[in-house]
């Protein structure tokens, strides 16, 4: 990290906010400007930003962050059922409950570091997943998942005189329905706020201490710093971000299932962060958006589309090509993701943001001929 000025931080923040709010415009050429997908970009962006506060700053790799995502979703749906279909209480409760949950898991897991820490978080998340499926069925509704029903109490809504008789109510923000484009804009604002908080944390003395822990944890202790509460707070904060992301999922689609807590979901956020660039501010959001975009595009390809794409080829070759390519799309799109991830980690260990940095460095050298200036400007965006 270099010392970036307060001004350059504001420029970065405003550029980020502008880019997020204008997504419906500039995503149109990619065929990705429909609300469902853009909501996912924002939700997983928040998840990855929070994960990066732990992994990117302290270097502690959690393999169980999906547990907090799931807890956030369940809490939000319960808030919809018991209190109100308004999204604000749901989001607040989700953050608090996920934070408490993260405190408990973090308190125990942080007694170890390195691979042992990762395994502990993985074990806790799998425990949560299995509990949600079995013992906790009264709370989680097991395999079916937690859903709204007509007979829900909705105490606050009832007090406000809002009753439903026919169809299930939809989530709202003081009457504004949270589906379609309003839902996207809500998620976009939440993402921008989350980014702002992460930016402040990264640039703060607290953030500097977290980077110190990543760089040389032993030294921190001999410098008079107690690393345990620093790590625990980083863990809890990133758990709260995950809870927020889980709540946003419930806001855009008010149901919660245990599969959200599965280890594959925990692994996904690790991939997003590393693909985008761990330790950078923008990287995790880019990684999240890229993975969700590819998931959407590649998984929608089926045999019919492939056959049409390779029509020009002779029949015998066409069937071979379609069969081979077919492995990487549709249900098998994870294969593409795996390849993409391998290529990134081997050639660009710092993720997409390292690619960006290398390119800016090239340009700057062309312009001024000084490589130190290059690393400085590139570092303005890099944390």
């Amino acid at each position, binding site marked *: 990290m*270099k010392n970036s000025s307060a001004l350059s931080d504001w420029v970065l923040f405003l550029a980020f906010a502008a880019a997020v709010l204008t997504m419906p415009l500039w995503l149109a050429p990619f065929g990705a400007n429909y609300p469902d997908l853009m909501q996912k970009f924002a939700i997983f962006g928040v998840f990855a930003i929070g994960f990066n506060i732990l992994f990117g700053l302290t270097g502690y790799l959690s393999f169980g962050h999906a547990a907090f995502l799931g807890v956030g979703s369940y809490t939000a749906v319960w808030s919809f059922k018991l209190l109100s279909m308004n999204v604000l209480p749901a989001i607040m409760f989700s953050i608090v409950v996920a934070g408490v949950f993260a405190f408990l898991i973090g308190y125990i897991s942080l007694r170890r570091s390195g691979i042992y820490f990762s395994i502990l978080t993985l074990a806790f998340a799998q425990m949560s997943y299995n509990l949600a499926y079995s013992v906790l069925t009264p709370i989680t509704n097991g395999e079916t998942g937690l859903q709204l029903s007509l007979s829900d109490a909705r105490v606050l809504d009832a007090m406000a005189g809002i009753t439903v008789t026919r169809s299930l109510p939809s989530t709202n923000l003081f009457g504004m329905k949270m589906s379609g484009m309003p839902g996207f804009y809500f998620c976009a604002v939440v993402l921008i706020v989350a980014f702002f908080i992460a930016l402040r944390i990264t640039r703060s003395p607290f953030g500097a201490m977290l980077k110190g822990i990543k760089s040389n944890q032993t030294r921190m202790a*001999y410098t*008079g710093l107690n690393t345990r509460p620093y790590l625990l707070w980083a863990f809890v904060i990133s758990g709260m971000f995950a809870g927020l992301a889980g709540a946003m999922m419930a806001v855009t689609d008010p149901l919660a299932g245990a599969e959200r807590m599965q280890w594959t979901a925990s692994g996904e956020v690790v991939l997003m962060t590393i693909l985008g660039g761990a330790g950078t501010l923008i990287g995790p959001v880019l990684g999240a958006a890229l993975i969700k975009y590819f998931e959407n595009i590649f998984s929608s390809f089926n045999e019919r589309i492939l056959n049409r794409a390779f029509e020009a080829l002779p029949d015998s070759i066409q069937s071979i090509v379609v069969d081979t390519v077919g492995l990487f799309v549709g249900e098998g799109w994870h294969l593409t993701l795996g390849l993409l991830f391998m290529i990134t980690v081997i050639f660009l260990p710092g993720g997409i943001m390292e690619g960006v940095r290398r390119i800016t460095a090239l340009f700057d050298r062309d312009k001024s001929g000084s490589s130190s200036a290059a690393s400085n400007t590139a570092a303005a965006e890099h944390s």
Partner: protein
Amino acid sequence: MDNVVLHVADVHKSFAGLHALSDIDLSVKEGETHAIIGPNGAGKSTLLNVCIGRLRPDSGHVVFNGENLTGKQPHQINQLGVVRVFQTPEIFPELSLLENVMIPILAKRDGSFKLSWFRRFAGENNVRSKAEGILQDLGIGSFTNSEAGSLSRGDKRRLELAMGLAQEPRLLLLDEPTAGMARHDTNATIDLLKRIKAQGMTKVIIEHDMHVVFSLADRISVLAGGRIICQGTPEEVKADPKVKEAYLGEEQV
């Protein structure tokens, strides 16, 4: 009697039956520079590690300004004002020089934990200018924004020293501050340590280089085989036949 700052009382430490330290009794007075010398494997580093809480003695205790350090965590001992400068630089290689020095200053100012997440680290102007001053003082002030990991070995050691001095310690423990330095750098470091001494900082210094020891130390303890075999002023130690024996084949005193 002068004011005793550090008192190591009857400390024993053994590793798997090997007596690393036995019967160590040592008093360091306020403002003095106390050198600990001895052949390799004499237990010098073990003694320092006991003082800063990295190792726990089997018996005996270490008292600093009336407070028992035994059983305290390293960060608590540091917060009391006991700061160690490491022999192999323990720096933050990925952070800039400035950050490397600002972190210890903040640790002293804000204590062992503070959740200040909304302030700007780079906006801590007092801390920053103090850190810049110290880096300047040590001759590495011209590249405050470079990554610490990219420094030369000698400069890393200066940075290590800067990080220690930045905390304005009440007791500074120096582990071979000039090992591996060129003669020119060694002299610069001696000058610097003399200047600190003039400010009245109490120091314990482990050193192999006798030139350094005799230019700085007020008193010397000679450690051999985990025991203190001789203690006194540089002149007394020079004259002691036991010391010559311990160093035979090692180094001439």
